[in-house]
């Protein structure tokens, strides 16, 4: 059976008028000069699509990692300066921190309560002020970090109520606003990536349509001859469709290979430089699979475009 396959394949090739070695397409499509141009164009389009899609994936991953880090967390800030303009000393702040801890300790929505001391605050501000910066004499706020079991509106309102009872100027930050901004920005960028991918698709369709139409104009006399010999539109269309499919496959494989190599390089560079924002930017299995589907999608687009264009143009011929 396996030995027979090449024979069957060749026979099928001949039937659609394309067996290399035995004979070429009925129309001189494979020797056309525009062939290389079209393959390169599809390679470029596939490459750009891979960049746009993988950028979108990376953005999604980054946003969800940041969101995961901040989700169900809250920070309580005890301002160093009171509403009347006077300052709280360290002792007063520590007292309030302990008071907050004991007040919140038994609440069911609270998982852990961590009082952040001066050393912890120093670590947080060190990227901006440096490791050796002395904070002695600075009016630092008191911070308490909360990890929540649940963070419904009701839970947050209950915590706020408890904090207000301790001191009305205590501020509870649930990072909601920041996260909302992050999601909005990420959503906008991903929409832009989607638009770019769609534009790439349309450009590919337009380029293939133009190429097919120009070839049909060049070989109009030959196509008419095939018609006069009784060739059906489907017979002629199959040759163009197969030609477009092969070109698209070649182009898409080249584009995908270059795209994947570039993604590997980006991952390597990001990992090597220790870029915090690009940490763990490797594509997941599903995402990689989506990218590897792109050559096949490009082939399908090329074949369907060729099919539609050829049948449409042929229907206008006598």
């Amino acid at each position, binding site marked *: 059976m396996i030995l027979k396959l090449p024979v069957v394949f060749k026979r099928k090739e001949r*039937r659609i008028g394309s067996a290399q070695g035995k*004979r070429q397409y009925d129309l*001189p499509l494979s020797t056309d000069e525009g062939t290389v141009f079209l393959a390169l164009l599809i390679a470029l389009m596939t490459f750009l699509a891979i960049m746009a899609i993988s950028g979108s994936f990376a953005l999604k991953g980054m946003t969800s990692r940041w969101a995961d880090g901040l989700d169900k967390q809250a920070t309580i800030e005890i301002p160093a300066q009171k509403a009347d303009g006077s300052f709280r000393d360290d002792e007063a702040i520590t007292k309030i921190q302990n008071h907050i801890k004991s007040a919140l300790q038994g609440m069911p929505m609270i998982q852990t309560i961590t009082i952040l001391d001066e050393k912890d605050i120093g670590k947080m501000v060190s990227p901006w002020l440096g490791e050796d910066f002395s904070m002695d004499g600075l009016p630092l706020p008191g911070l308490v970090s909360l990890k929540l079991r649940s963070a419904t509106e009701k839970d947050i309102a209950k915590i706020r109520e408890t904090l207000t009872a301790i001191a009305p100027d205590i501020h509870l930050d649930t990072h909601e606003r920041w996260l909302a901004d992050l999601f909005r920005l990420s959503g906008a960028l991903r929409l832009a990536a989607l638009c770019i991918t769609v534009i790439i698709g349309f450009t590919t369709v337009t380029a293939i349509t133009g190429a097919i139409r120009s070839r049909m104009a060049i070989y109009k006399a030959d196509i*008419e001859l*095939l018609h*006069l010999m*009784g*060739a059906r539109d489907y017979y002629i269309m199959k040759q163009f469709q197969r030609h477009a499919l092969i070109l698209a496959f070649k182009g898409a494989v080249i584009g995908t290979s270059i795209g994947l190599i570039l993604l590997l390089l980006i991952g390597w560079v990001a990992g090597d430089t220790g870029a915090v924002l690009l940490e763990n930017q490797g594509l997941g299995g599903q995402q990689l699979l989506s990218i590897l589907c792109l050559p096949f999608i490009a082939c399908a687009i090329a074949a369907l475009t060729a099919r539609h264009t050829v049948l449409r143009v042929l229907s206008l011929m*006598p």
Partner: protein
Amino acid sequence: MNLIGIVKPEQVQAFKNAYGVHKTVIKFEHIGLRYSVGPEVLSDINFTLEPGSFHFLTGPSGAGKTSLMSLMYLGRRPTRGILTMFGQRTNEMNREQLAAFRQRIGVVFQDFRLLPHLSAFDNVALPLRIIGRPEKEIQNNVSELMEWVGLGEHSRMLPPTMSGGQQQRIAIARAVVAKPKLLLADEPTGNLDDEIGFRLMNLFEQLNSMGTTIVIATHSQKIMDQLEHPRLVLGQGHLRVEEPKGWIRRTIEGVF
């Protein structure tokens, strides 16, 4: 069993259409043809070609022979009149039907119209591949025909590298390879020497004797005199049918 009243006339016609029972091959009724808004190049053409007939189409240059041929091979549609092919009106045919009808017609074009990037063999094989014949049959039939037209050793040559006469033989082989019901040839012996020319005319005669309807457009009085077949004579866009002189002589001899 009396089928009258059981089988409707349109069903009988549909059966005849489907199986091609004794249909007139071509019927021109008041056919006119004009290009764009110009004058009519063919006016009020009326004639009928019965199955198995052999006609020459002749007339001075510019009389419209090629235009008439193009109507016969369904290369264009008439601007007026009714053209019936194999029992069916062509103006009622859709694209699929047109293709199916064209498969029954073999055409030798005056300018050969060979595909230059295909070998001589593949050019001849093209009609068989279009109708989907098995490759083995194609190999056998085409090789045999290539031998017959004297180009067996040139089957891998490309048309641009061949002489005019060789190209013409390829064009003729391509037209007859699928054993068409109707063969139309536009000046088929124009570039051939007498010997090859008469061999090809003999091929046409053989095809005709097997039932193929043949129309040959030619200026050659010699060929028309040698093969006594009716002539469709075109002049100033009009057509008349002439019987061969020999036929008149033989008919008179037969009567007396």
